[in-house]
């Protein structure tokens, strides 16, 4: 998109190079750009989007994956500080950190990016058909193509290996059909590869993963039947824009399967292929069952084969239960030995039935194999070009995950997301922000352009409304007649323009909207599509670009609230969509332009809690040149780290880690205040006033890093009744201080007070790793160790190696379940444990010298009070709630307040460090400017009508209204920086003195009236 954005490469500004345009790369690029850095975003394929663009839904909310990703792609494309270079590869990196020179190969697209409009006529006439990689080869594409509908940029590319003209050089006019039809003359077969050299201060590698093709594992039958699919292939099958339009159909006969089996750990946790755990499969397969059931209610049976159910993330354990209760998934703890086609056209799975411990077989209509995530193709070559190492599994090597989980083996080169090993979206996104913070510290110059004031239109001018109705592929158009709705819209008063689009959020449609605003002289825009929650910002931005005040924009949600919920009644759904559009148009007519306000920012940050999360966050923020207050309720820094001795995975002493971090603190502008808690909080983003030890600290941003508390098992498992029944923390101490007498028998009990169906439902993520590490330590002291577990969840990078090491050292593993938790009997001072051994399906009793209770981290006792003071909500699990479960793990719903580490959810040190560093980029972006912009869609008070009754003050969740005395008169004033514009006060005001600016009574009434008007 070089010339469209008027970016010149002639004197390129020094920036940060981001390699890979998947969700991690996009997040890193946006974080950097928002903080003022120049970003060069290089993507090998013709479009950014990566693997996340291929996914159907994301869990546990079952949100549409591309729908939440697409706005970020468009933002990255449009951002003036990001130069997106698609279809390009990095070939070399010379120089020193801070002063690298990167060599980038721009591959020939054979289509002029500045000329192509993405109309797609060329692809329709192209005679070539080859498997479409984006759809995992389940359907064909032409030689001239865009990978997917929302491709960003929406520019066609000719596949040189497939095109009839290009397959054999030199170019002779063998085909040329695309040239004939391209009215823009965008096709150019003479285009050549171009090498570009740019100066970069740091590099972020975000090259993601590939899915292993399990052809080698012949006993699982992949390739022998079309009805055996990989996880990603099935994901495409579920997708409304996929090869079957979202219908789960067998490729062999086009029929809906009655039963599907899902098989975990295919090529993962397998010493012959990849010994590591792929981290995401257990839960995505549950999601696939749920979505498949939703798409095809006739699928009656889901069989789910697994080894250890690794549902470790926030809400995952609950999701796992929901899969069983709601979608009716039959979970079978067994790895199938073979899958073969049977004579009925189905597939027969042979497996050991865990309830009888006998071999058994099962006939199903379809099988989905959760295949290993492997390093993306070309990882080795890129590592060589960048001068960094890869690890034993072929991923980019992280020098020391306990110092910086994003630092490669070369200074100045950082790695995030799956490029350094499998991880899920929120972990990838957090790492991306962390990598951005690290890279940013190498960049001297940052430019923050001031946002221009919003264009203001005359509100009283006759309304000229444009309506854009979205198909969202088949998400909407599969049910609602989008074209018909657009036609209908034309008949509505003041509508001067109406059209329908395949993807209204895509880059090309944005341009169409801009053109329409200018050409049709529109002064109101209505988009009937998905949800304003994710997409309103993009459309507002488009309006502003075309010179229209963004508050003159209105959205009708005809997807989530229409096509998705009425998929069985398409005609009625279309009528409802018309109703929704009619209402939106009636409101649009009454919208008023609003202007943003600026308030100055206090360019300092407060970090609450000085465990490893808070310490790291303070360091990373301070490294960006921002002063930090770091407060800690105890009199020492370190938090839980003070109670730990050796850290997983490489037995780094906790003391060493803490010492290294504390030394850094001393060198940075960080004011440490110990014995201090937050006493009160006042103010808003950019201008918080926090009382600490009776003193007011003025800060622009707050980071919550209060961690969690360990949950002491009160009375359970005879805790407290025997000196040798210890929690993992106490055992850690015992191991380090006194060790164990030789030949001690040690028994670990996992999930003590976690993963409960009543009570604390979550999984603490790190306890399995901790117990494995302690078990290994104990065996080194010649102890005999048994671990009683429900699933071994050693999913972390190197976690599976730790598990193998423990087994090799002779640690015995006994599996039980929630209903058969071990019982402890104390007899004359000796400890006897009775437990169930699911492996042998028998009751076992063993005598032991020590019992170690692996206890979880639960929300900090102070969390609720802090949550109330900061107005940051807690989740139902009691941990601080992040802004978005996938894409906003570090932000909260309160602007200017961020979270990291165990205050958000339990996690290990490496994941905590990533989050803490990631927070720094967010804080950095916010506090790099001297002001913040305030949202103008707030409430306002007519002081002449206000009776100062205080109702609004009582009900406001955000502390926005205050009583002010103006001489004799007392009335309410709304603090615009705190007001969210929710309108609650306006609806409660007995005197009708309050108006929600963007939701006036007039507007709402007009909509309601219009609902009942045909």
């Amino acid at each position, binding site marked *: 998109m070089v010339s469209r954005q008027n970016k010149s490469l002639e004197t390129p500004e020094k920036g940060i190079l981001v390699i890979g345009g998947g969700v991690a790369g996009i997040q890193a690029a946006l974080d950097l750009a928002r903080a003022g850095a120049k970003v060069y975003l290089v993507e090998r394929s013709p479009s950014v989007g990566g693997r996340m663009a291929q996914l159907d839904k994301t869990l546990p909310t079952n949100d549409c994956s591309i729908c939440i990703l697409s706005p970020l792609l468009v933002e990255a494309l449009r951002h003036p500080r990001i130069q997106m270079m698609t279809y390009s590869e990095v070939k070399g990196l010379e120089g020193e950190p801070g002063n690298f020179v990167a060599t980038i190969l721009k591959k020939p697209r054979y289509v002029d990016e500045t000329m192509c409009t993405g109309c797609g006529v060329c692809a329709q006439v192209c005679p070539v058909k080859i498997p479409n990689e984006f759809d995992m080869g389940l359907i064909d594409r032409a030689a001239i193509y865009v990978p997917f509908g929302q491709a960003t940029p929406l520019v066609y590319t000719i596949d040189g290996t497939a095109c009839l003209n290009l397959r054999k050089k030199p170019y002779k006019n063998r085909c040329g059909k695309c040239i004939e039809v391209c009215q823009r003359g965008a096709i150019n077969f003479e285009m050549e590869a171009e090498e570009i050299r740019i100066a970069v201060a740091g590099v972020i590698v975000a090259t993601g993963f590939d899915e292993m093709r399990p052809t080698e594992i012949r006993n699982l039958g992949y390739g022998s039947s079309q009805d055996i699919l990989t996880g990603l292939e099935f994901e495409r099958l579920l997708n409304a824009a996929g090869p079957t339009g979202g219908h789960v159909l067998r490729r062999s006969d086009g029929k809906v399967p009655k039963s599907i089996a899902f098989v975990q750990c295919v090529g993962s946790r397998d010493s*012959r292929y990849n010994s590591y755990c792929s981290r995401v499969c257990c839960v995505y397969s549950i999601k696939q069952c749920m979505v498949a059931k939703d798409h095809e209610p006739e699928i009656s049976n889901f069989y789910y084969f697994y080894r250890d159910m690794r549902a470790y993330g926030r809400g995952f354990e609950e999701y796992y239960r929901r899969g069983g209760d709601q979608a009716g998934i039959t979970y079978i703890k067994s790895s199938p030995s073979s899958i073969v086609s049977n004579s009925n056209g189905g597939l027969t799975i042979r497996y050991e039935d865990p309830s009888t*411990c006998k071999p058994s077989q099962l006939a199903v209509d379809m099988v989905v194999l959760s295949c290993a995530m492997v390093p993306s193709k070309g990882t080795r070559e890129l590592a060589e070009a960048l001068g960094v190492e890869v690890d034993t599994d072929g991923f980019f090597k992280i020098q020391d995950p306990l110092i910086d989980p994003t630092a490669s083996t070369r200074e100045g080169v950082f790695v995030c997301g799956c490029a350094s090993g499998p991880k899920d979206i929120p972990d990838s996104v957090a790492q991306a922000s962390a990598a951005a913070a690290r890279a940013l510290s190498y960049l001297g110059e940052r430019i923050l352009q001031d946002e221009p004031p919003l264009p203001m239109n005359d509100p009283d001018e006759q309304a000229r409304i444009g309506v854009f109705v979205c198909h969202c592929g088949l998400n909407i158009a599969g049910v609602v007649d989008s074209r018909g709705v657009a036609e209908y819209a034309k008949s509505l008063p003041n509508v001067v323009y109406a059209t329908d689009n395949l993807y209204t959020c895509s880059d090309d449609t944005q341009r169409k909207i801009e053109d329409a605003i200018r050409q049709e002289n529109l002064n109101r825009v209505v988009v009937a599509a998905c949800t304003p929650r994710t997409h309103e910002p993009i459309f507002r931005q488009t309006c502003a670009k075309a010179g229209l005040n963004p508050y003159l924009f209105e959205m009708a949600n005809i997807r989530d609230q229409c096509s998705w919920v009425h998929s069985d009644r398409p005609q009625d759904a279309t009528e409802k969509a018309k109703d929704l559009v009619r209402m939106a148009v009636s409101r649009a007519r009454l919208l008023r332009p609003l202007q943003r306000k600026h308030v100055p920012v206090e360019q300092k940050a407060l970090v609450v809690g000085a465990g490893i999360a808070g310490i790291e966050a303070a360091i990373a923020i301070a490294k960006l040149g921002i002063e930090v207050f770091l407060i800690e309720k105890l009199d020492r820094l370190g938090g839980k780290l003070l109670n730990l001795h050796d850290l997983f995975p490489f037995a780094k002493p906790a003391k060493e880690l803490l010492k290294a971090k504390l030394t850094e603190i001393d060198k940075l502008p960080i004011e440490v205040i110990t014995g201090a808690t937050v006493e009160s909080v006042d103010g808003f983003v950019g201008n918080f006033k926090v009382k600490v030890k009776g003193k007011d600290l003025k800060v622009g941003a707050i980071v919550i890093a209060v961690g969690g508390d360990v949950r002491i098992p009160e009375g359970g498992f005879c805790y407290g009744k025997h000196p040798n029944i210890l929690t993992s923390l106490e055992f850690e101490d015992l191991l380090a201080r006194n060790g164990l007498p030789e030949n001690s028998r040690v028994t670990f009990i996992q999930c003590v007070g976690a993963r409960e169906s009543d009570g604390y439902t979550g999984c603490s993520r790190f306890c399995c790793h901790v117990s494995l590490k302690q078990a290994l330590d104990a065996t080194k002291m010649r102890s005999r160790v048994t671990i009683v577990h429900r699933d071994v969840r050693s999913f972390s990078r190197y976690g599976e190696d730790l598990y193998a090491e423990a*087994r090799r050292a002779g640690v015995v593993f*006994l599996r039980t379940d929630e209903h058969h938790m071990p019982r402890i009997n104390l007899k004359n001072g000796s400890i006897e444990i009775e437990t169930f051994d699911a*492996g042998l399906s028998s009751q076992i009793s063993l005598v032991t010298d020590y019992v170690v209770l692996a206890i979880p981290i639960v929300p900090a006792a102070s969390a609720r009070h802090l949550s109330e003071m900061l107005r940051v909500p807690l989740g139902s699990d009691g941990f601080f709630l992040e802004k978005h479960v996938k894409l906003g793990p570090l932000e909260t719903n309160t602007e200017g307040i961020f979270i990291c580490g165990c205050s958000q959810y339990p996690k290990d040190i490496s994941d905590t460090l990533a989050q803490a560093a990631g927070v720094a980029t967010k804080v950095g972006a916010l506090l790099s400017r001297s002001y913040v912009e305030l949202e103008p869609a707030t409430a306002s008070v007519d002081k002449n009508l206000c009776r100062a009754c205080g109702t609004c003050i009582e009900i406001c969740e955000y502390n926005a209204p205050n009583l002010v005395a103006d001489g004799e008169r007392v009335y309410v004033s709304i603090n615009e920086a705190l007001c969210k514009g929710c309108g609650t006060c306006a609806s409660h005001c007995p005197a009708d003195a309050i108006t929600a600016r963007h939701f006036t009574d007039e507007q709402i009434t007009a909509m309601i009236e219009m609902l009942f008007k045909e």
Partner: protein
Amino acid sequence: MGEALSSLSPKELAQKTRAYLCLDCSKCTASCPLGRLGVTYSPRSFVQHLLINDEGPDEASLWRCLTCGLCHERCPSDVDFPVFIRELRSKAIEQGKMPHPTHSETIQEVMRILAKPETKPQRTSWLSDWVPVIDGKSGQKVEDIYFVGCSPYLETIFEHFNLSLLDTHLSALELLRLCGVKPYVLRDERCCGHDALWSGDTELFMRLASINVELWRSIGARRIFVSCPEGYHTLSTVYPDHFDFPFEVINTVKFLAERLEFQPTKIEKVSVTYLDSCRMGRYGGIYDEPRLLLKNIAGVDLVEMEMNRENAPCCGSNLWINCDGISKKLQNACLDQAIQTGAGVLVCPCDKCRIHLACAQLENGFLNETIRTENILSFLYRKGVNNLG
């Protein structure tokens, strides 16, 4: 002489066979060919019992394992269950337990006789005249040896099966000669001891093996050619663990695949299928070479059985112990798969597989004899010799 295997403690056994690494994933239980016949045989349970309770399997289970290696093949933790069971058998033998031998223990008796140093076998009369024969004690030095193994004895015992077991070796020697190799056959060579080893009679195995190694050493052998998959597996992977072993063990089929060239002239249309015997395939990893040889013979249509290569079925019996109705069922299942391919010939590298399958065919009154078996080397020589370039 190396350390006796049977002295392993349960802990050492678990370490040696990687049993500690068992993930309890259940793949093995469902893989075991016995399971297909309704006999539950769960390697993971045996491993878990040993790890948790320090208990070995019950005696019937101990001898029941076919050592076919399918569980090991599919194990994600690479647990070597066949060796695990082999070591436990060895312990059981030490404690005076015994498996049930077949054929009135004749074959075991042959092994015992051969294990005596004073035995002077006369077992080379069937060889072609051109084949050089050497006496181990002659003091003569030769580099290349062809190891025959137990075929001469088996041919005598199973003569009524008409399998022409010695053809295998005659063909192998002819084919080797075409490649310019003329190995010597050692007159006083012993049985390799494979069956004794896997039955747990480690002591008998060691006696046989040490006589062989001593003979090879005294004639200064460098290369040993072996056609029998069991012999090849034993000589190439077990012997070197126990002896100073300066010899190169060569699999005849593999050797030929690299050297033989065929003319692609089509002479006679014949459809064959190939059985990957366990020691050749799962134990030896030799899958492609026999197929290459078969396909390169003009006219040969190689049709694969439903289960092939690393998933190949078991011939149903092993080690001349514990042959019963289950063995017969497995043999018939294996034959059925071969018959279903429509091939006329089941080509197999292992003559023991052929004996077990023939036994089932005989018991069925040769009702199943829509397919006949042939050793790959005999087949190659018979079919391919005319096409050799």
